[in-house]
């Protein structure tokens, strides 16, 4: 099941073909490497644009949200067996 977290995180990454690609993120003072990005989706609410990333880090699936207007990252959920 997905466990709700909703905590602010810091993300570093690279740009590929004009798109940001997360490489690692810092959550609760731990550096988590991004092993695979499994899904990326763009959503919008009015003019507010958000990009949702699903990625695998050390075998765990994380759902990240990037607010494209204020460039704010949020760890939404993680998968727990």
């Amino acid at each position, binding site marked *: 099941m997905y466990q709700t977290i909703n905590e602010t995180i810091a993300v570093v990454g690279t740009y590929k073909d004009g798109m940001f690609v997360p490489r690692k993120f810092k959550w609760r003072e731990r550096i988590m490497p991004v092993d695979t990005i499994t*899904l990326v989706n763009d959503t919008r609410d*009015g003019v507010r644009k958000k990009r*949702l990333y699903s990625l*695998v880090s050390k075998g765990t*699936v994380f759902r990240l949200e990037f607010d494209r207007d204020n460039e704010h990252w949020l760890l939404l959920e993680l*998968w727990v067996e």
Partner: protein
Amino acid sequence: MERTILHVDINSYFATMLQQENPHLRGKPIGVVKDEGRTCLIALSKEAKQFGIETGARKQEALTLCPQLLCLPASFERYLDATKRLQKVFLTVAPSVYIYSLDEAFIDVTDCREHLYPDLEKLGKTIQDRIKTELGEWVTCNIGIANNRFMAKMASEVAPKGGVSIVTPDKKELILATTPFKDVCGIGYRLSKKLARCNVFYPYQIRFIPEEELHTLFGPFWSVQLAKMAYGEEPHLLQQIDREIPHMKSVGRSITGYHLYQNPTEIKRILHNLSIEIIEKVRIQKLAGRNIWIGLYGQEGYWSAHLTIATPINQVFELINRVDHLYKQWNHSFEVIKFAVRLSLLEPHQQDQLLPSWQKHESIQRALDTINTKFGRFTARPAAVPPQKELIYPEVTGFLGDKLYQLRNE
């Protein structure tokens, strides 16, 4: 040149997207529910279908068939984005693309087939590869190719998972003779039951029913449609795709509650919440409507009322007033589980009214629109709606009945 239509159908779309997102779910039986706490399975992974579970089954029934079934909530905004990306992939193949539902599309390659796609099997495989590149390696689709949409859709239904099926004249007869009516586009549950009572289970069998008898049994409309289907011709439902629709004719929204409601304030608040969503859609499309309809469904009853007015409306307070007026007619004879509101007879909003009261409401509405566009939906809203945590947000349906709105150019 003969028409060439491709029908692309993503396999077990909602469940497949969850499996694409989460490698831990791949190869496992997954059931998709609309939201946390819901019990109706709206989609199933191919692994779950192997246990004999059917779409629409209750979670408890499904768990008796497959105790290891994992039930997860759908993520409609992600599916809609994926569909928009699929649309872009299809438009790289040919300019004539029709998104039929969230997970299905027709591509007409008639004009570009000769020079660009002489090998249709190869084209099908190329589209499948592009979908994998765009959405992920776990996403597979069936592709049916035929000279019309009806046969293309049927071919993709009968194709093996992840396969490409091209309808040749020989194959066409075989498909018509072996595809049960439940897999035939345009045949609903009741019509298939009626056909079964006449011992007709496959489209091909209709050829042996005399025209007069078909007319007597199924009436003037369905007798013609069934005769077309028997020969693999496009029925009315799919021909409608070619019709130009300048704008939506109606905008409606329904929701099933988490429990039975009997408190009038709670019921009205839910109807108001649905009204806000309707007005948002209507105003974005610069439309206004004249017919207001509300429906309430209980376990033992159903009630609806409607009202047609002279002047089209597109302001939330006006719609809420009209909904409240209709609601007053209800005698509260049952507890409510499902709520529905619809604004129809839509037409382009062309002229503002000069009445001061209308101008006042319009200026409030514009302020609401500006705030909610900038800061997010429901930031500013009428007071008489459910509390923040219980607000009902817009969602897309698999059928994508509001595709004119959802897939509009922004």
